[in-house]
């Protein structure tokens, strides 16, 4: 494994390249308030981040990534449009043993906050990041969570079901269980009929959740019980969408062939993005498109997603990134701005360069 000094030297080189592309360097604190991150990511981040306590500032976290502090800094008064770069350590507890699982490593990143032409910004971020690691012979995979969200939104069913499915796009296991329920392939729990008939247990009410919250949910379940099942052919189309993997230039045609009119606008965005990538000199025929890319690992990405990986499957991605418009909404306190970016792991770059 490359020394920390080698990783840092590589990181400096990347930072200089990002700055030369017009990004302003920012240097967020290593100690971040834990509350914001815990509220955003929940238990996933608690399991992975080092939490410590500060007598004056409360629970603090060793920076598990840069995206949240970068968004916060931009929202606190950045000019628009803006491009940022940064470089430094991130810290992640590793719950599995193994040499490739390091608990602290350097990230160098580039982020674009720009309302004009999101697909051009996607291409800008990807092309700049990919260019820095072009000499390593990595495999690039792209996806688009926006296509999946459009497909769910386009289902012919009640809004509550679409909302529940959209919320679980990043949790495939729960998504597919819900889908089986909504399609009538899996029966409702045996207790459901008694519940809807008005039966209530005699137990005393305890806890913070209110009876109003329970009654609101029962009303939703009543509505759900009257909804028609999602047709089996619609479920099959969605399954085919999730399973789609092909060279990127074929993706628009393959997606259209699925017969999902609701995703047409998202396909058009994919076409604009591919054209913008080609215009920036990216060889799009070498990109792999995976419709499910980003579903299991990158919850805050809600549009374009990408990773650049070495051949060794034991190694984490050398670079990854994507679009996170919704995150700026959550952190913006009523404001939002389309945002896209990504990070490179200089330590892995130095390793791969050393092996060449």
């Amino acid at each position, binding site marked *: 494994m490359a020394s920390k000094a080698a990783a840092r030297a590589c990181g400096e080189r990347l930072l200089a390249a990002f700055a030369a592309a017009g990004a302003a360097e920012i240097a967020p604190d290593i100690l971040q308030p834990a509350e914001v991150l815990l509220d955003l990511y929940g238990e996933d981040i*608690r399991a992975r981040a080092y939490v410590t306590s500060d007598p004056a500032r409360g629970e603090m976290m060793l920076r598990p990534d840069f995206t949240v502090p970068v968004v916060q800094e931009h929202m606190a008064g950045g000019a628009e449009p803006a491009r940022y770069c940064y470089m430094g350590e991130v810290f992640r507890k590793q719950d*599995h043993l193994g040499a490739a699982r390091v608990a602290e490593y350097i990230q160098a990143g580039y982020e674009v906050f720009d309302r004009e032409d999101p697909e051009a910004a996607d291409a800008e971020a990807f092309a700049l990041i990919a260019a820095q690691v072009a000499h390593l012979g990595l495999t690039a995979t792209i996806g688009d969570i926006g296509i999946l969200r459009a497909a769910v939104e386009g289902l012919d069913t009640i809004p509550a079901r679409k909302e529940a499915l959209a919320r679980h796009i990043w949790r495939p296991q729960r998504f597919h269980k819900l889908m089986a*329920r909504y399609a009538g392939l899996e029966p409702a729990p045996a207790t459901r009929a008694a519940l809807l008939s008005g039966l209530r247990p005699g137990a005393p009410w305890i*806890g913070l*959740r209110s009876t109003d919250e329970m009654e609101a949910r*029962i009303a*939703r379940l009543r509505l759900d019980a009257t909804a028609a099942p999602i047709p089996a052919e619609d479920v099959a189309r969605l399954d085919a969408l999730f399973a789609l993997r092909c060279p990127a230039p074929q993706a628009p045609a393959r997606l259209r062939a699925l017969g999902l009119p609701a995703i047409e606008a998202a396909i058009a965005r994919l076409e604009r993005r591919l054209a913008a990538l080609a215009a920036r000199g990216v060889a799009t025929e070498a990109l792999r498109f995976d419709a499910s890319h980003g579903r299991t690992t990158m919850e805050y990405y809600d549009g374009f997603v990408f990773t650049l990986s070495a051949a060794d499957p034991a190694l984490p991605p050398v670079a990854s990134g994507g679009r996170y418009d919704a995150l700026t909404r959550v952190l913006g306190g009523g404001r939002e701005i389309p945002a896209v970016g990504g990070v490179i792991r200089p330590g892995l770059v130095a390793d791969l360069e050393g092996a060449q």
Partner: protein
Amino acid sequence: MTIKLGVPSKGRLMEQCFDWFASRGLTLRRTGSDREYAGAVEGAEGLELVLLSAGEIPRELAAGRIHLGVTGSDLVRDKLADWSAQVVELAPMGFGHADLIIAVPAAWADVDTLEDLDAAAHAFRAAHGFRLRIATKYHRLVRDYLTREGVADYQLVDSQGATEGTVKNLTAEAIADITSSGETLRANHLKILSDALIHQSQATLFAARAADWTGEEARLAALCQQLGVARPDF
């Protein structure tokens, strides 16, 4: 050199553990005064008894300070990262049974399954501005389980005892805890989710991968034969 065997130092668990070994021709007993944590083994050569708190046995096994240890399968899975890379399960021992389950207020008519809990947690977070709290001391087991099952909008809050009381005390909305009869849950107006059995625990004999087994191979083989368990493949 000796093989060190760690067993729980007190209570019913210790007695049942002693019985289990006794029925296989090994007499374990405490020595000295009632309060002294010292023990002896009769019926096998080169076996040393170490009396420990059941909760510390996983850590001692992981560090290789004991060769063999008896503790709950729940504790090993919860306390050790990649537990099967650190210890080998030699034998489930048939006592100390307890189920790690999720329980919610019995008055929640609309919550019976994980799917219900997930939906209730989503609405709860929107209504209260924070994630639905699940009190537990089994952080790793519960978190891994809920991640695998795709449950969102919850948070774990630590509870090292009297966990069944946390809902009434408004420090949690649900709990994840071990239960054998369910009596305490009912007394605290809680009910078990019908499809959320996280782990069925029982007292288990483990062997430590990190312990120094050099020169102990023959002794281990003889001991495994006497106990009627398969020899571990380290």
